[in-house]
C-alpha cells in the first residue's frame, strides 16, 4: 500500500512543472497566483496596449497603433518643458521632499519609542495608528478646510489681528504637507520595528566600550536600523509618487503631479491612450527609483564596512 502511494506521488510530481504546482506545497500558491493574474497582470497589460493607441479615444482599435502619446509625454519630460516637464518636476520634488521630511521626523521618534519611552508608549503608537483607520480623502479634506480662504486657519489668524491672509492652498508645498502627514506612519513603523530588533544590551555594550554618542549613532544605531530606513523610504517614496488625492485636493488643479494628471487624462479629458502612457511612465519611474534606493544604501553599507 505504501509503495503504491509512493508511486502515485512520484507520477503526480513527475518532471512536469504544472504537476508540481498542483501537488501540496505548490497548490497553496494557486489561488494567490490566479488573483494576481486577473487583478494585476491583466489590467497592466491593458494599460500597455492602450498606451500605443492613437490619441483621444476610449475604444480599442486593433488596426491603428501609434507612439504619438509617448513622444508627447516622454519628450516633454526629457526636455523638462511644457505640461509634462512641470508634472515630472512636481512629482519628483514632492516624493523626495516627503521622504526626507518623514525620515527626519520619524528616526528620532522611532529610537525614542523603541528604546527610551516606556510610559504612554502604547498611547502614542495608537495616536499614530488610529488615523490610518480613516479614509485618506477625509483627512486631506480636513487639511483643505483648515488652510483654505475663509477656513479655520484664517479665522485663527484674524483673531490675532492679521487681516491679509494669503491662502496656503494650491502650492507644491501644500501637497508636500499632505503627503508628509499621510505617509508618516509608513516611514515610522519600519524604522520602529528595526529599532526594536536592536538589543538594549548591544547599545549598552557600545557605551561600555567607550563609544561616544556620535560613534554610537554612526557605527551601531545607523547600520542596525538601516533595513527599516530602506523599507520606510521605499514605501514613502513610491506612495508619494502615486499620491493623487493629496495632489488633487491640496494642489487644486493648479499644481499637477503625475498621479493627478493621469486621473485627469482618464477622467476629465477622456484620453485613455495619453493616461495609459503616463501610467506606464510612472510605473517605470517607480521601478527605477526602487532599484536606486535599494542600491544606493547597499553601496553605502559596503563603503562604511571598508573604512
Amino acid at each position, binding site marked *: 500500500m505504501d509503495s503504491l502511494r509512493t508511486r502515485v506521488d512520484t507520477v503526480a510530481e513527475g518532471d512536469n512543472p504544472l504537476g508540481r504546482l498542483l501537488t501540496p506545497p505548490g497548490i497553496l500558491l494557486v489561488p494567490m497566483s490566479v488573483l494576481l493574474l486577473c487583478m494585476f497582470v491583466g489590467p497592466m497589460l491593458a494599460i500597455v496596449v492602450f498606451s500605443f493607441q492613437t490619441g483621444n479615444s476610449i475604444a480599442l482599435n486593433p488596426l491603428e497603433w501609434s507612439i504619438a502619446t509617448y513622444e508627447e509625454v516622454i519628450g516633454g519630460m526629457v526636455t523638462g518643458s511644457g505640461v509634462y516637464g512641470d508634472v515630472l518636476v512636481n512629482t519628483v520634488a514632492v516624493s523626495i521632499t516627503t521622504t526626507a521630511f518623514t525620515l527626519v521626523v520619524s528616526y528620532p521618534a522611532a529610537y525614542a519609542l523603541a528604546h527610551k519611552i516606556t510610559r504612554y508608549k502604547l498611547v502614542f503608537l495608537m495616536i499614530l495608528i488610529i488615523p490610518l483607520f480613516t479614509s485618506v480623502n477625509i483627512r486631506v479634506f480636513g487639511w483643505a478646510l483648515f488652510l483654505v480662504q475663509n477656513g479655520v486657519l484664517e479665522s485663527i489668524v484674524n483673531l490675532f489681528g492679521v487681516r491679509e491672509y494669503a491662502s496656503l492652498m494650491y502650492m507644491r508645498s501644500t501637497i508636500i504637507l499632505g503627503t508628509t502627514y499621510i505617509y508618516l506612519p509608513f516611514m515610522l513603523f519600519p524604522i520602529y520595528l528595526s529599532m526594536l530588533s536592536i538589543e538594549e544590551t*548591544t547599545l549598552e555594550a*557600545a*557605551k561600555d566600550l567607550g563609544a561616544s554618542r556620535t560613534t554610537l549613532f554612526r557605527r551601531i544605531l545607523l547600520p542596525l536600523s538601516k533595513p527599516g530606513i530602506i523599507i520606510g523610504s521605499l514605501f514613502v517614496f513610491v506612495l508619494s509618487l502615486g499620491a493623487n488625492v493629496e495632489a488633487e485636493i491640496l494642489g487644486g488643479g493648479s499644481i499637477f503631479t503625475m498621479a493627478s494628471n493621469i486621473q485627469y487624462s482618464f477622467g476629465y479629458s477622456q484620453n485613455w491612450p495619453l493616461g495609459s502612457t503616463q501610467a506606464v511612465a510612472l510605473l517605470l519611474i517607480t521601478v527605477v527609483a526602487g532599484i536606486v534606493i535599494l542600491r544606493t544604501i547597499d553601496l553605502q553599507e559596503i563603503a562604511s564596512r571598508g573604512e
Partner: protein
Amino acid sequence: MLKATNLRAEYGSLVAVNDVDLEIETGEFATIVGPSGCGKTTLLRMLAGHQEPTSGTVELGGEDVTYTEPQNRPTSLVFQSWALFPHMTVRENIEFPMRNKGVEVGDRVEELLEQVRLDPDIHADKQATELSGGQKQRVALARSLAYDPDILLLDEPLASLDYVLRKRLQRELADLNEELGMTFIYVTHSLESALLMSDKLFVLQDGDIIQTGSPEEIYRRPSTKFIAEFMGDANVFSLDDAVERGDGYEVKSSQFAQTTTVPYHYDADPEYLVVRYDDSSIGSELTEDLGLEVTVTNVLVRGNTVLVECDAPESDGEYVAEIPIDEFRDTDVEKGDAAYLQWDASKSILVPE
C-alpha cells in the same frame, strides 16, 4: 581598589539592592553569588555605570565614579548575552573599543584572540553571528579586554554554555585573572563557578550582602541556614535545644540518637545543624558522635561515590550521605534497609535562622 558604600537601588517600592557595602582589592577575583532575583545583576550594572543608584557611592581607586557614564569608566562589562555587534566581524568587534580610545590597533586583535584561545586565522574575519556560543563568549571577553579596563565585570557569561565548556572557560578565566593582574568581578547564581574561580565571595540575598569571605570560609562556616542550603549538598536538622558549653554548644534534637557538643562561631543562638552530604556516612550500627535512624529509600551512583537517600521517621525531610562506592559496599546496607545516618561532631555546622 573598588569600594561601594551604602549602594542602594529601588524600583518603585521594590528594593533591589539594599545599602550594600563592598570592597574589592586590585587584581582580586571577586564573585557576587546569590539566587535569581537577589539583586546581583542590578549591583553589577551600578558598578558598570549602566544604572544610577538610588543612593550611595561607588569609588574606583579613591575617585568617586557614582555618576560617571559607562563610556568614561575604566570598567568593562561582559554581558550575559555577550552583546556582540551583529553587523560586524570578529575583528571589527574587537577593534571597536580600541578605535574609541584612539589606541594603535596593530597586531592587538590577533594577540587578544590568542589570549582567549581562538585561532585568529580562522575566526578573525568571520561575522559575529556565525560563531558558536563558546566562541561568542570568547570574543566578548577579548573585546572587553581590548578596552583595557581596570576592572572586568562579568554577568554570568557562562550560564548558557554546556557543562564541559563551562568548566574549561571557568578555569581559563581564573588563569587570565592571574596572568593580567586585572580585577575581575563575576556575578553568578552557580555555587560551583563561585567556588572554583574566586578569591573572595559575596553572598547576596534579597538585596543584602549576608556573608563575605573566601570560598572555603563560606563553604565551611556558612553564617545562616540560607547560605548553608544555598552552598548546596547539605542535610539540615532543626534543633530543639542548644545549651552553651565552653567553646561550643550541646545540641539536642528529638531526631538524634544522642547529644554532643559542637563548636560554634556566631553570636545569634544556633537553630539548625547542617552537615554536608560528603561528611555524612551510613551504617547499620551507630559508630560516630551524632546520628539518627533512617530508612534508605534510594541509592544513586555518582562516579566514584554513591548518594544514599534516606527518610527519617519523625521528619518529612530527605537526607543524603555521599560516600565512596567501596565504603558503601562494605556496609552491607541496601535500599529499603533501616540504618543510621551519622557523622563526626566536628563536621557539624551550627547556624542561626
